[in-house]
């Protein structure tokens, strides 16, 4: 089954971008939620962003889940464990998320039900009724006054004068006389800036005819209210057309303001009530998207987390299961967690134990026949040196010397193995480590005058507690390595530097030996401390392994690296004082 593999870095970038986008849009949604109109405007684009995030996440989760299932079906190493862990972590996230989702919806619905409570609606209706009844009284007063004015009008000839006189003494803002064709015959106002009278419609005229009066309460865009009263003028007519008196009465501004406020609240409440269901759907949809996004993220995280957690265990299983095939332990420097460290320590200990065991056996097995071989060769030489002459004697002498020399080489190797395998207790004593370093330097600078040693010590005298002889062996070994590395350099320089450190309130000395030689080959750097790893033609590959062994015996740390420019550096960190339990001599 083919599985699409995404670059992990690209996937990470996508995920972080989506998380950022979704979080930003959800925050915007949260802050805008106070105002339903604002929410309406921005909700669609914000939800669109989250839907896109959801689709991409779904795709990523599907890919990861598919890979996991395929691995499980193919019985791949660690797949079962990964699947179980992913299900466990995913389950832990899914159940509370679903529970929270339904609780949130329930609380949200209750919240919406509170503001749309029937009591609120009743209250608003009552407020409207109360306001109206207050204004009804004004309307009745207006009607009474207008009817009286209409009765008092005497004829069409002097209508302008009559209206001007009446409007001054009445409460009306404006008086208009019009005919049945809605033509204004006269108009009079007690305001300097009279307003354009709103002419009644034919229907309103019909109603005034039918009921002998017509009244209305109108609102204007500026929030004020106006009472209109229309009554027929019965005492005279104009060209046989019936006449009507239209009067305008303004409502007290305070009352207008309160009426407007009640009306506004009622309209707002009515709009929200009307849109209650879509608002509810909108909130549920948003919440569902948030929960689904969180769930997908949790599932994706659980799969990835399970994979990372199981990776070192898989490596351990591979290494232990396939040790015979010499599979190397994959390095996981970037993901160094407890399990990785544990596995690496375990593997290292296993390796060292294996090497120690092999070294002991080899030393024992090889050492036994060496002495008889050497003795036999020497006997042959002694016995036949008086028998043969000339070329034959030379042949015998050369051959036996070769055997003896090679036996010596073999013995040296066996001794080195023996030293690696044996773990004698450290002889801890206090001594000046700077002097020991200087002695090692002096030993090699006498041997090779061409080399330049640059020494930089943080102090002329620095007392440490350690095994002096073993550290001397370490310094000699490292200086010799540096000399070998710079053998082909035209201007070889070996830098030796010390400094003191404090780590977790413990004193340490740091020693750096660096050279400008050829440096380590890239494939060697990672495992240069392992036995038999060397680039030297004559080396046994045990020097650095022994050095590391000694430093670790002192609870120190050693690391090596190639310099950026040229050459290599070895950095040793040693505790100044040895722990009491590690001081066998005390």
């Amino acid at each position, binding site marked *: 089954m083919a599985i699409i593999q995404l670059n992990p870095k690209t996937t990470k970038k996508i995920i972080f971008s989506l998380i950022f986008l979704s979080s930003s849009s959800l925050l915007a949604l949260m802050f805008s939620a106070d105002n339903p109109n604002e929410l309406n405007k921005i909700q669609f684009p914000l939800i669109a962003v989250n839907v896109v995030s959801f689709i991409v996440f779904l795709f990523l989760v599907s890919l990861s889940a598919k890979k996991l299932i395929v691995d499980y079906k193919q019985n791949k190493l660690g797949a079962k464990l990964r699947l179980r862990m992913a299900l466990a972590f995913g389950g832990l996230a899914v159940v509370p998320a679903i529970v929270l989702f339904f609780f949130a919806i329930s609380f949200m619905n209750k919240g919406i039900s509170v503001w749309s409570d029937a009591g609120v609606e009743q209250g608003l209706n009552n407020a*409207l009724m109360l306001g109206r009844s207050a204004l009804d009284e004004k309307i009745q007063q207006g009607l009474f006054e207008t009817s009286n004015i209409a009765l008092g009008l005497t004829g069409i000839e002097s209508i302008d004068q009559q209206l001007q006189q009446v409007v001054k003494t009445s409460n009306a803002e404006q008086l208009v006389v019009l005919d049945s064709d809605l033509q204004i015959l006269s108009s009079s106002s007690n305001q300097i800036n009279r307003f354009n009278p709103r002419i009644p419609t034919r229907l309103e005229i019909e109603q005034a005819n039918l009921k002998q009066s017509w009244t209305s309460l109108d609102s204007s865009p500026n929030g004020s209210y106006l009472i209109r009263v229309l009554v027929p003028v019965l005492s005279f007519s104009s060209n046989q057309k019936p006449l009507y008196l239209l009067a305008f009465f303004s409502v007290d501004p305070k009352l207008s303001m309160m009426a407007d406020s009640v009306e506004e609240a009622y309209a707002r409440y009515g*709009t929200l009530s009307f849109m209650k269901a879509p608002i509810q759907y909108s909130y549920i949809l948003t919440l569902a998207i948030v929960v689904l996004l969180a769930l997908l993220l949790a599932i994706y995280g659980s799969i990835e987390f399970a994979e990372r957690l199981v990776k070192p265990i898989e490596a351990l299983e591979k290494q232990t299961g396939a040790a015979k095939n010499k599979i190397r332990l994959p390095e996981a420097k970037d993901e160094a967690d407890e399990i990785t460290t544990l596995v690496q320590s375990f593997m290292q200990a296993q390796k060292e134990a294996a090497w120690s065991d092999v070294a002991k056996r080899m030393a024992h097995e090889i050492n036994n026949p060496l002495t008889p071989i050497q003795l036999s060769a020497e006997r042959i030489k002694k016995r036949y040196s008086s028998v043969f002459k000339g070329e034959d004697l030379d042949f015998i002498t050369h051959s036996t010397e070769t055997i003896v020399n090679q036996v010596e080489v073999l013995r040296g190797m066996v001794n080195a193995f023996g030293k690696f395998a044996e773990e004698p207790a450290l002889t801890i004593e206090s001594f000046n480590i700077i002097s020991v370093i200087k002695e090692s330097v002096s030993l090699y600078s006498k041997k090779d005058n061409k080399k330049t040693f640059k020494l930089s010590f943080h102090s002329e005298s620095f007392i440490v507690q350690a095994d002096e002889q073993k550290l001397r062996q370490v310094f000699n070994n490292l200086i010799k390595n540096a000399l070998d590395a710079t053998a082909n350099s035209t201007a070889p320089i070996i830098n030796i530097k010390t400094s003191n450190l404090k780590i977790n309130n413990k004193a340490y000395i740091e020693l750096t030996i660096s050279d400008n030689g050829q440096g380590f080959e890239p494939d060697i750097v990672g495992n240069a401390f392992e036995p038999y790893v060397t680039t030297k033609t004559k080396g046994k590959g045990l020097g650095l392994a022994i050095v590391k062994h000694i430093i670790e015996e002192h609870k120190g740390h050693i690391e090596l690296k190639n310099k950026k420019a040229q050459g290599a550096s070895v950095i040793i960190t040693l505790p100044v004082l040895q722990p009491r339990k590690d001081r066998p001599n005390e």
Partner: protein
Amino acid sequence: MNRIKIRSIFLVANLFFGLSMTVNAEVGKGSSYLDAGVYYSDIELPLSFAQEQIKALESGIVFNLELRFQIINVRNWRPDRSIGALTQTYTIEFNAFTRRYSVTNNNTGRQVSMSTINEVSGYLSKIKKLPLVDDSLLSLEANYRVFLNSNLKARDVSQWMKTLSFWRESLDSDLEQIQWQLFN
């Protein structure tokens, strides 16, 4: 295969938009006349309010009636040419306090109030003497037609909220297009 896909997309789109928009099927008419160098129009709109729209109005939702006029020079053998366009908007709202509907002409600012929704639709259905175009802009030889597209829309209610109100009658409605000859 592609044709089937395209048809499916159209079907889904029609279903989706069909839910959020209804078309008023009544027929309207219009006519124009010249008065003091200006062409005026009398229009009869096929306007009626749906039950859901009345309910929304009475709940406090404000509606806009938009009339979009376009005067087109219809030419033989050549593409038609637009001479001008005019948009007239009316705002319709219900005042719960006065229990009256108010209709405001947003172009002139004139406001009228009515006590019933039938009065409102009657008032808005018959629009008289609407100035359309100046006579000096027209050529007597040309053939001009006036196209009127109108719609009634709930104001301040987002498309998102309208889409989520899928189960009920739409708050928006498009009126049948009306067209007439500007002059003979």
